[in-house]
């Protein structure tokens, strides 16, 4: 058990932007929320699942909606406390802790603000350790755990709680609710016992995110060997340094799909193509897939090592393309069915990162 410091928070924001793999929403707003919540309600405590009563109820909490809307309709706070209260009241049990469902993008930080306000600890775990666009794309689905009952709430006091037969149906019901509730909402789902969190969640995600961010911050400060240390920590690799020479974006069925083509700095004959669906999903070097979902593709600004989100990609931008292996908890039967390249409609085989590294 430990208290989160403001310094941790800055590192966590940087780590979360990186783990957003180009998506997940800019954590900037979430950071401001956490700061205000800590000012108003006091510090937040991070705990391991083993420190809690194994039968105690744990609820996830996250923002669901469109990042473009969230930057304009900034959170109230009540959409998050509201969805947690709604689900707790449906279950007839109060939570002993909150947990992020997604450590990657703004959802990394949302539970911290809610936890400060509700006086609950946050568990150092999650179910993705990167950003993914849909609720069922998590290791809980692999473990056969149901996303529902789940709740969606807005800032005005509207709340819905529903049960679904599969996690895929739960995802559709949640999006449909969001469409009617202003596209910037709180969601709570995957209610579990602290004991089950210890068994089925990705452990240590928050600490990993903070450590990753801390190392990336050292890179940004230009510290000696910081880049090597950053890569070592994440078992990551620099795949490509290039400049965006083509960018094609379109929206289909709620997904901002796109393709970005990079040309190597100093070698116009080498190109990398990266396929986007909200997040960066597959990187091809000279036609061959080299990094594939669920492993992480991250664009870092060539000048200042700031992670770049897909919404701000632009012609001529200079980027380093980094590959990070996904959390080891992902590697179990069924992974490729829910988060492999084919789950996103690409006729490409998963290429484990270790194979590449050799």
């Amino acid at each position: 058990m430990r208290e989160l410091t403001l310094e941790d928070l800055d590192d966590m924001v940087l780590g979360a932007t990186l783990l957003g793999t180009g998506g997940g929403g800019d954590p900037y707003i979430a950071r401001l929320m956490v700061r205000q919540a800590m000012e108003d309600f006091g510090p937040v405590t991070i705990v391991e699942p083993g420190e809690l009563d194994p039968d105690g109820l744990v609820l996830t909490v996250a923002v669901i909606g469109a990042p473009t809307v969230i930057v304009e309709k900034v959170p109230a706070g009540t959409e998050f406390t509201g969805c947690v209260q709604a689900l707790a009241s449906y279950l007839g049990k109060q939570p002993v802790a909150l947990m992020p469902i997604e450590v990657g993008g703004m959802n990394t930080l949302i539970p911290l603000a809610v936890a400060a306000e509700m006086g609950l600890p946050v568990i150092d775990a999650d179910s993705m350790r990167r950003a993914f666009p849909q609720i069922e794309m998590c290791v809980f689905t692999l473990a056969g755990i149901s996303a529902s009952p789940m709740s969606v709430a807005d800032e005005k006091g509207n709340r819905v709680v529903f049960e679904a037969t599969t996690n895929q149906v739960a995802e559709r019901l949640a999006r449909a609710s969001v469409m009617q509730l202003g596209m910037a909402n709180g969601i709570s789902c995957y209610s579990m016992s602290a004991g089950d969190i210890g068994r089925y969640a990705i452990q240590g995600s928050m600490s990993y995110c903070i450590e990753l961010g801390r190392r990336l911050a050292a890179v940004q400060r230009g510290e000696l060997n910081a880049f090597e240390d950053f890569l070592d920590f994440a078992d990551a690799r620099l795949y490509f340094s290039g400049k965006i020479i083509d960018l094609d974006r379109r929206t289909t069925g709620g997904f901002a799909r796109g393709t970005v083509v990079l040309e190597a700095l100093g070698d116009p004959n080498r190109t990398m193509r990266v396929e986007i669906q909200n997040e960066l999903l597959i990187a091809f070097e000279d036609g061959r897939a080299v990094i594939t979902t669920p492993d992480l593709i991250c664009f870092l600004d060539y000048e200042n090592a700031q992670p770049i989100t897909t919404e701000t990609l632009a012609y001529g931008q200079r980027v380093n393309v980094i590959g990070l292996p996904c959390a080891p908890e992902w590697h179990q039967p069924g992974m490729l069915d829910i988060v492999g390249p084919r789950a996103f409609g690409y006729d490409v085989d998963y290429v484990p990162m270790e194979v590449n590294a050799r």
Partner: protein
Amino acid sequence: MSRLRIGIDVGGTNTDAVVVDETGKVIASTKSATTPDPTDGIRSALEAVISGVDKSAITQAMLGTTHPANAIIQRRELEQVGVLRLAAPSSLAIRPGAAWPEDIHRAVIGPRAIIEGGFEYDGVEIAPLDEDAVRRFAYECVGKVPNVAVSSAFAPASSEHELRAAEIIEQEVGDQLRVSLSHQVGSLGLLERENATILNAALFGVARRVVEGFHAALRAHGLAVDSYLTQNDGTLMTADEAVRLPILTVGSGPTNSMRGACALAGLSNALVIDVGGTSADVGILIDGFPRESSAAVEVGGVRTNFRMPDLISIGLGGGTVVRPAADGVVVGPDSVGYRVISEALITGGSTLTLSDISTRSGRLSGFGDASRVADLDANVVSAALAWVDEQVQLLCERMKASRTALPLIAVGGGSHLVPASVPGVDEVVRPAHHAVANAFGAAIAEASGGVDRVYRYESLGREACIDNAKQLATEAAIRSGADPARVRITSVVEVPMTYLPGQGCRVQVKAAGPLLVA
């Protein structure tokens, strides 16, 4: 008789002025040191540049100035601002002024309130505007602060609540409060737009003094002309508008410089390198406008959603220090800066700088005494030049958006360092009058208008939505003074809304055109 326009640029170091005719030809130019009270500099630059010019032919005067930017950076002359946000119950989790540096927060932010009002993305009210709360806030501010910044959720698309709030404040307290409205200031992104709106209101006093000084200088020279200030995007607003929207001028310096350089060279698509005493900046112009950086821009430590030109800077300038080393040379990153006029070898000093290298190699002549570097080691000279050439090539490579070779325009006091040819660059152009590129950029600026909102493509179709945005941008440009016959769309950006079904899309369109001359 040709109509003439004056362009004036007040920079951190120099105040430049030019007189330009309708074809873009420079009739007169001047360059002088910026004065502690910048209006003195404007007056003397104006005096120098119009002597010998037919004053009756001058119809317009354009000013680009760093006054407002410096006021923010140095926390000087800023006025206090009451901050009213119309968005509750949304946005309560983040108070106005969150993440502002403490010193400017203290200097600027007065009473704050988040009250009911604002809109959803689709134009539905989040809540009806709480008009009583607006009245209460106005009375709370009177006597405490001279200005109020009003921002509502989705104001760029739905400005009704902001306009109504301004009307109520005016009815209640009249001119005891001056009001800045967010939809006039910034684009989507409530917190950043609110920040920009607060800064805008804090600059009201500075803006009034700048514009009054500008007008007084024009009057003192008997010039009864239309007056304009240049904005961050390289286009104009009237001096009267600038009094209400000074924040829109804070980034105009680099934009004017790049646009001026390109126009002086007669090009609209080119790379521009501006080499000074300490650093070199490279940018790119596409269809006459600088490509903008995608990162959020901080002004004086406050995050805003303005876009500024995408520039890469490195430590390469006329004053950059060169040190011979075992295997060649070490160049920079330190520089003697403007002291190159006394500290370089050629100017009688004792520091080996890139200006000395440039002189020895013949790239620079007519500055200092070339005989002082006649004995320089040829290996040192060639190693330093090789470094310079490589850096220039790398900068150009990194800035270019495609493989197509582009011309490179070299400007600035240190531009002699730029080699005559650069791999990947068509040709190196060194336009006449490049020393006053900033003022020239101001003189040739156009009027513009823009729109930034969320459209739902499934209801009207993409084409109709884009056409609507183009129409609104064109109308806005014409309202700003653009010639309706010559206004054109200068940029269309579509950013699809992620993570939701349906085809919501943020559309940003800008239009610009030459000023309509009566």
